[in-house]
């Protein structure tokens, strides 16, 4: 469950704009037309034809109407993932408006905001109502606008008011990822990944000769019988690692909903969840317009939301030469595994990756480029497309030559598939 922000209800006092309803205007037309033709044609039956309409209008003659109302709108949550459903409860309070006997009927109509899809009806009657919506794309989204219409008992007057519903934070839906990439050399910190050194873990590592001080329960009696001397089992130490997610938000190309930035955010969210569940310390660096924003690696479930908040707070756009060499040690700890999500379209970002590799960091690049230049018939266009492809292949080849694995992810399949070659065995942390 996403932790909810405090004070999620919004109570607003709205001023009503009263006017005669369409129904009243139609009745007036019928009444006046009947009277007019009765006089012109001198036929009293047309006065009778006008009578019911005029009687209805006279019965519902203007009386004191409430000038304002109080509306409370409360979303069930202020944070949701893409495609998740959330409800908005709305309630009308007319105690101060002098409507004790419920003379007015209330009609609600929801106009959903951008990238907000209604689930179920968008109109409801009654003093209280509930609307269910689903945000379709990540970002800080306006739920929409709520229109309230009050009608009197005779349906001759209508009071209109509208209010803007609160904003919600929509998080990118993390892709499925169960496996993790583990470095061969792990820092000396307790965790869940079996290290090469022996320690107090649970994974069997080998057998050695007993030395005073060894625990009696670790004696391997079968091996001791065979060799004639006491032998003890040894176990692999369990360590954790530092993981830094590096998200390139400089290029957002492709179809909205499956663009490079969409895939980068979903992939980073999935990686954050997977590594934090493995008790690793995870941080994030977002490469963006104004440089790079970062969040130091930390443990815990809440770190997922901190990471996503940090990514969403960054601006997408062309980076004006952000340099990772100026990042503090806390943001990029030595020996950390750096998982990069990028379409590799910004040359300076690629240079920054090479620089990081030369400084000894273990990098793994997830290529999220999901589109190509449009295919056209002209030979020049086809040539340009070919050159562009070759450039992209050259960039990826140069990174692989430096020892940086590059895997492509299309956003539809699980992240475990492209990472399978690197999750089966510990990744070499070369310097």
């Amino acid at each position, binding site marked *: 469950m996403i932790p909810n922000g405090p004070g999620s209800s919004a109570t607003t006092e709205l001023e009503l704009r009263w006017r005669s309803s369409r129904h009243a205007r*139609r009745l007036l037309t019928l009444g006046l037309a009947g009277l007019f033709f009765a006089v012109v044609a001198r036929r009293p039956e047309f006065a009778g034809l006008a009578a019911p309409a005029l009687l209805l209008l006279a019965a519902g003659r203007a009386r004191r109407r409430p000038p304002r109302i109080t509306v409370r709108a409360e979303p069930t949550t202020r944070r949701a993932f893409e495609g998740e*459903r*959330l409800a908005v409860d709305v309630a009308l309070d007319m105690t101060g408006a002098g409507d004790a006997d419920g003379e007015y009927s209330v009609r609600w109509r929801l106009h959903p905001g951008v990238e907000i899809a209604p*689930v179920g009806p968008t109109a409801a009657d009654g003093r209280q109502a509930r609307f269910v919506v689903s945000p379709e794309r990540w970002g800080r989204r306006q739920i929409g606008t709520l229109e309230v219409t009050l009608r009197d008992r005779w349906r001759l007057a209508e009071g209109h008011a509208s209010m803007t519903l609160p904003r919600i934070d929509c998080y990118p839906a993390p892709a499925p990822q169960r496996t993790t990439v583990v470095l061969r050399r792990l820092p000396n910190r307790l965790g869940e990944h079996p290290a090469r050194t022996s320690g107090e873990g649970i994974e069997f590592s080998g057998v050695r000769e007993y030395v005073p001080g060894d625990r009696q329960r670790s004696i391997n009696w079968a091996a001791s019988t065979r060799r004639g001397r006491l032998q003890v089992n040894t176990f692999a130490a369990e360590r954790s690692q530092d993981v830094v997610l590096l998200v390139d938000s400089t290029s957002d190309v492709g179809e909205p909903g499956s663009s490079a930035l969409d895939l980068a955010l979903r992939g980073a969210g999935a990686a954050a969840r997977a590594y934090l569940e493995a008790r690793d310390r995870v941080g994030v660096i977002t490469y963006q317009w104004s440089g790079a924003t970062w969040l130091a690696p930390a443990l815990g479930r809440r770190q997922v939301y901190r990471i996503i908040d940090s990514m969403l707070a960054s601006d997408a756009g062309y980076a004006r030469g952000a340099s990772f060499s100026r990042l503090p040690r806390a943001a990029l700890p030595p020996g950390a595994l750096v998982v990069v999500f990028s379409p590799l379209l910004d040359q300076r970002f690629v240079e920054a990756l090479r620089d990081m590799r030369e400084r000894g960091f273990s990098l793994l690049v997830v290529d999220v480029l999901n589109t190509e230049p449009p295919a056209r018939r002209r030979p020049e266009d086809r040539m340009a497309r070919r050159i562009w492809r070759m450039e992209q292949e050259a960039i990826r080849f140069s990174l692989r030559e430096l020892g940086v694995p590059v895997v492509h992810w299309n956003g539809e399949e699980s992240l475990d598939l492209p990472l399978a070659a690197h999750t089966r065995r510990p990744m070499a942390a070369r310097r």
Partner: protein
Amino acid sequence: MSGPATRPVGWLRAVAGTVSMRAVASAVAMRAAAVLLGAGSLVWAALPAVHRGWSGFALVLAIAGVAAGGLRLALAAVPVPEDSYWPSPGLRVWRAFLEVVRQVPWEEGAVIGIVWLEVLHPSRPWHTAVLGAGLIAYLLITHLAESDAPLATLRPQARVLGLGAALLALGAGAGMLPAAGAGAGSALLRLVAAGALIVAAGLVLPYVARRLPRWGAGDSGGIYNRRQGTTQRRAGPDG
């Protein structure tokens, strides 16, 4: 949904699935009833066909009003396409069409056209009274259809509608009264007399009707309360 579960969504799904077939059928029936009442009133007023006093124009006005009013009700749930920077011609035409259908007062035009057609026929008071009832029903059902309100919404107006029907019958009765003599003065006198009678009845009848008992309203004169009182007496300590 691939994100972590944030909330049990079963109850939300239950809420979301409240657009029942019954509600849809009710809305469709209400719209169909409105169109049928409008078309019925139009046919009732137009037949037998007359060819004088701009009857062709009145007929076209009435047909266009009823048809476009029905179209407006049918398209009431269709959302207006979102505004974009450079909309396509088709989108612009569709937006303009929706705006015209929704903004023009079609029903008012239909009412004027239908009453005009009725005027063009020779005097037939009972016929006009039936038309008046049909037109009131048309306007009421149109309002219910456009506001998606149930028929029970009209329950508070039932008494006034009854009084209106009485006035309608009174007007028809006044129209059937034989004229005192031939000429325009006699017809005008008859009209003034009928108008005065209708106004007098309209002023008096509400006060008479207010004294009539309400059915099932839960006030002191209702059957429900009398039965309840009997039950209480039986269950009382005195037996």
